[in-house]
């Protein structure tokens, strides 16, 4: 088991109770998709797992170790093993694609070397290799903000691959991309999952993508798990429960 979340609570300062005692177990090599409306706690869950925000109560175990309260150097080591992809890519716009990809390695580099830009040839090679995996090696020298949305997200994937992550968290990675690009970006997640055996936890909105890529689905509604199972088992009735009576499924191809 790679990840075990026990009775996880998150209460924000404004009193918003975002997570209400979640229990989740994730096996190695899974492609777990989390669905639910905006504000249901999906992003909060992912950020509590890699401690970008602090959970209020409960525990998170990563590779058999309780990481809920680790600090400093130890926390950075944990973070270095967990890759994260964001909805808005979060690249450094003014840096080149290559430099963005290399920044994924920061957790494993000496501070002074990383600031002076002293990277070994191995790191450059690894960066080019990862750019090749996501198919944009030829754009390595370009500024990150000149790339299209889909390409930027692929750079972000390459960046997190630099960490050699055991676990890859993706927070609505295709929510700001068009349907065709969404699918091609999702294919790279599938590739990472199948070829490197990296466990993926991904927040998604489109059920057609969920059915295509997920090995297991968890649905959240106002901070609680209301569904857990195979993607194929989500029928009309479950859909209405998860997204509300008004909702209708939008097909994307």
């Amino acid at each position, binding site marked *: 088991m790679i990840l075990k979340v026990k009775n996880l609570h998150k209460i924000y300062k404004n009193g918003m109770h975002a997570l209400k005692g979640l229990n989740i177990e994730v096996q190695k090599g899974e492609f777990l998709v989390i669905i639910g409306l905006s504000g249901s706690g999906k992003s909060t869950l992912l950020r509590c797992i890699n401690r970008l925000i602090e959970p209020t109560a409960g525990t998170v175990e990563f590779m058999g170790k309780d990481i809920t309260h680790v600090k400093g150097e130890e926390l950075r080591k944990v973070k270095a093993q967990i890759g994260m992809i*964001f909805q808005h890519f979060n690249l450094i716009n003014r840096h080149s694609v290559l430099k963005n990809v290399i920044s994924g390695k920061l957790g494993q580099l000496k501070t002074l070397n*990383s600031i002076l830009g002293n990277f070994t040839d191995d790191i450059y090679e690894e960066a080019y290799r990862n750019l090749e995996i996501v198919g944009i090696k030829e754009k390595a020298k370009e500024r990150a903000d000149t790339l299209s949305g889909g390409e930027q997200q692929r750079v972000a994937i390459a960046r997190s691959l630099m960490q050699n992550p055991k676990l890859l968290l993706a927070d609505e990675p295709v929510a700001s991309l068009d349907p065709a690009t969404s699918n091609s970006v999702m294919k790279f997640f599938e590739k990472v999952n199948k070829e490197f055996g990296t466990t993926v936890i991904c927040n998604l909105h489109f059920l057609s993508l969920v059915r295509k890529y997920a090995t297991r689905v968890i649905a959240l509604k106002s901070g609680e798990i209301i569904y857990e199972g195979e993607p194929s088992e989500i029928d009309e009735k479950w859909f209405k429960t998860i997204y509300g009576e008004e909702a209708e499924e939008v097909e994307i191809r």
Partner: protein
Amino acid sequence: MTNKTDNNQSPIDIIRQNQRLEERVNFIKAIFLDIFFVFYSILLLQRAIYYKFILDLRDIPFSWEGIIILFVISVFIGASWTFTKTSLSCKLFGIAKDNKVTKWSVEISGWFLFNITFIAGWIITKLSIVDLFSSEGIKGAERLFGALFKPEFGIFDDALFAMIETIYIALLATLISIPITLFISFFTARNLMKGNKTTFIIYYVLRLILNFVRSIEPLIWAIIFSVWVGIGPFAGMIALLVHTIASNAKLYSEAIESIEQGPVEAISATGANKIQVVWYAVVPQIILPFLSFTIYRWDINVRMATIIGLVGGGGIGTMLMQYQGLAMWHEVGLIVLMIAIVVWVMDYISAKIREAIY
């Protein structure tokens, strides 16, 4: 942060507890503000409006006892006003009762405060339409303007030299300020320093010092330094430097505070340490604003350097002061003309540069 990991306490309790605490804090704040409002109104009513306007006294009677009595009265009135939960401050802090009385109380007291402030301001500044349009005054102004518009070019060489001195005072103050400000600004950015107690104390103390330094005008700094290092361009330069550091550190750190959090999140998620996060996610986002602020500050410093010259900071300002003291208005006219041209040119250049780098 509600970092309580106490498992015995249910999350609902934590929420309620936080709410209750916040309400109590707001109530205390409201009491203080209400007392201030009442004290302020009574004081203005008594001193500016009653003594000065109605009784038209030349010397206003002053005694600390009187002030203290007024203060005690306002403490009682203010506090009891807050306890009814219908006061202006209760409304401001969102703890007021939602009824007609509150609405009336807030509207009336708001209008009252605004009006007495305006009237007191009128009386205190001795606003007088008669003085502004007296024929004698207008004649004097005409004479002066006439001289200013016929500048005396005999002193052009001297004025040019003084002008160059002023521009260099401003330039050097700006250049030296850059590395110092850069260093300080990271420690005065809230989003970088709020992490733990030690850094937050550093942040707070630094901010306090900078606020203090900034609140003293460059003019005052120039007076201080002209005593310290002697009258002349060096005093002016160092006065500008001190003020530039304090004001730009605020602008810089605000630029740091308003960066996009996304890249910061992404870089920290890779396990990078604090210094790496700042270098990779913060610095690329702030380089342009920093450059822009600095160039703008150079422009401001040229204008300020002339003013600083008035109190012995060297350059064109000192020269202006000398001719003004001798009432040689044609010479003053030339100097004013030169200052205007230089300021206009600097303004134009700095705007163009700032446009170009964005």
